[in-house]
């Protein structure tokens, strides 16, 4: 992962692409979606069948921070034909891409957010809360200054108003809190060890069954 960050800095990138962001986050012990970066249409089809349908295709570039708005996200693709069509549309959107990300489609109603920011006085801080597109409106989040102990992580999970979503919910099992704790502690460590990482957004972190999985992520590099 040092290599990924180093290269991105050399290339003058302000952020990492989704694919690279997730490689960095995955190295901190956080579960990410199974995914592969396809560079041809045929490769996309091959990866899709390896991962298993349905899949998601996303245009992958460090310049594509608002992928949905740019038409670079195609959800619930359930056949080779749909993958081919989606690939053509994304590749033809007129944006320079690293490739097209073929990703497992995570099903789950509960979306959380994990983030990292840097406070000028307190240093790296980890955020946890309700994720999804309304994150900033709902603003149900808690913070801890890194490094985090496991107890810090457990406490910050307990601090959000909608913590009941972590319990058994409408037929879904309770969220595996140990995995959440590992993720929060791990993101804090990334912040402490890598001053070249300025900010991280993991949103959404979707709960699949009881397992939190990083579905989209952004790593912002220090300028």
């Amino acid at each position, binding site marked *: 992962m040092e290599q990924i960050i180093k290269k991105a800095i050399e290339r003058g990138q*302000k952020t990492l692409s989704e694919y690279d962001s997730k490689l960095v986050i995955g190295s901190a012990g956080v579960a990410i979606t199974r995914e592969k970066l396809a560079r041809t249409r045929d490769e996309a089809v091959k990866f899709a069948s390896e991962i298993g349908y349905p899949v998601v295709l996303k245009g992958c570039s460090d310049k594509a921070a608002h992928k949905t708005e740019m038409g670079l996200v195609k959800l619930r693709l359930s056949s080779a034909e749909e993958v081919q069509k989606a690939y053509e549309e994304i590749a033809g959107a007129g944006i320079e891409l690293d490739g097209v990300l073929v990703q497992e489609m995570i099903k789950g109603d509960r979306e959380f957010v994990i983030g990292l920011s840097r406070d000028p006085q307190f240093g790296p801080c980890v955020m946890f809360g309700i994720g999804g597109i309304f994150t900033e409106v709902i603003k149900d989040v808690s*913070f801890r*200054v890194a490094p985090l102990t496991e107890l810090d992580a457990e406490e*910050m999970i307990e601090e959000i108003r909608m913590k009941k979503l972590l319990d058994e919910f409408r037929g879904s099992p309770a969220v595996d809190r140990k995995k959440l704790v590992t993720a929060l502690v791990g993101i804090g460590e990334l912040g402490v060890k890598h001053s070249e990482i300025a900010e991280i957004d993991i949103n959404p972190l979707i709960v699949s069954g009881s397992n939190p999985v990083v579905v989209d992520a952004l790593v912002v590099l220090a300028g």
Partner: protein
Amino acid sequence: MNVKIKDSQLDKFFNPASVTVIGASSAPFNLGATICTCLREYIKFPGPVFAVNRKGEAVSGCPGYSAVADIPQEVDLAVIITPAAVVPRFVKECGEKGIRNIIIESAGFSEQGTDGTALQSEIDGYARRYGIRLLGPNCLGVLDNMSRFCCFYGAYQEIMDVFDKPGGVSYVIQSGGVGVLIIESLMDDVQGINKMVSIGNKTDVDEADLIEYFSGDNTRVIAMYLENVMHGEKLMNVARRVKKPILVFKSGRTEEGTAAALSHTAGMANNDAVFDCACRQAGIIRLRSISEIYSLPKMLTEMPLLRGNRIAAFTNSGAFGSISADLMVEAGLRMPRLEPATRERLLKIRGVFNVNNPVDIGPAPPQVYLDIFEILFSADEVDGLLLMSSIWRDFVIDVIKEVVKMCKRYDKPAAIYTPNSVGRIISVRKKFNLPLFDTMEEAVRALVVSHEQFRYLQKKETRYGADN
């Protein structure tokens, strides 16, 4: 109790043997002169006090010199209160004279833009060169109730009453005005001030240094009014180790996150949210209003800590029972149902009909009150008491005195509010030295804060051992 005094360079801010006030003159409205007057006339400072001014004139009976170098004796502490532009020169002169503790009360530094910031870094340079510890600039100075020392500028005679009532609370304040508010308010309270330090722009000594210092003296509660934190990690590291309660009220809560942030996280991580979590992690109790800085410490000095969150309320009016129940539940405290055994014991007391929580009785003789309190304190399902009985007969005061003793005996606290006028409450509190709160809201907050300190203490002891 931890009463060792650390051998520290900070000692001389509190207990100097000799002082010079730089910028004190006999010109009208000279602020330095008020410090000389305070030292000589109000507190009758036992050591020599020198004035330094252009004419070298004496001020309020303090011999005057036109240069620091001319002072014929060693000086422990210099207080500088001159225009900002000449402060660096005087810091240098103090350094050359061998003075290692300086309080800069003058304003006009980093709080006033780039020119002031440049002056401040010039001062820092001299401080480093000579190994000087600096308080300020832009501060009110120091008050120490143990050594009877005060170098506040503009101090007035009434403030000196503070020395008649030494206590266990040490204050760190980032505003002189708050200092005066605290001093005057505590005159009407059971707790007193141990030390008060105004840190101003804290170019050197900051709140973390003082928490460390107060952890080693006879301070019992540390309370702070802060406008900013410059070294977050330093503050957290010190606070994590110090077991005395640390209370903080911080202004500037509405500050927004970094506007230039690229991520949503950075957009939401405003300075206040981060400060709040830092306090939780480091075991610092965050106050909700500035009045809590003087009203709440007595809960921590006069009462045992609240070990759980289950509160029994007692009142002589149903209204206060329901109002307080709402307040407590909102604050995260619980009002448990009394166990059958407890209820049975209560029912045996003559005149008690309502054995729910809150326990609510009408006019009753003192022994009935005391019997009820014994039962509530001895109940396992009760961690603490919220006592709300108006003083409708003088014997209620005697009952409250007994409750304070019971709290020690049962190692459970009571937050006491008498639904009387604030004037009446204050006069009873002063006359009988009882830890009464002015409002029901304050009493409930006192319970919350007591339990918060208990939990922080447990965490700190788990991490650092019980007796360091």
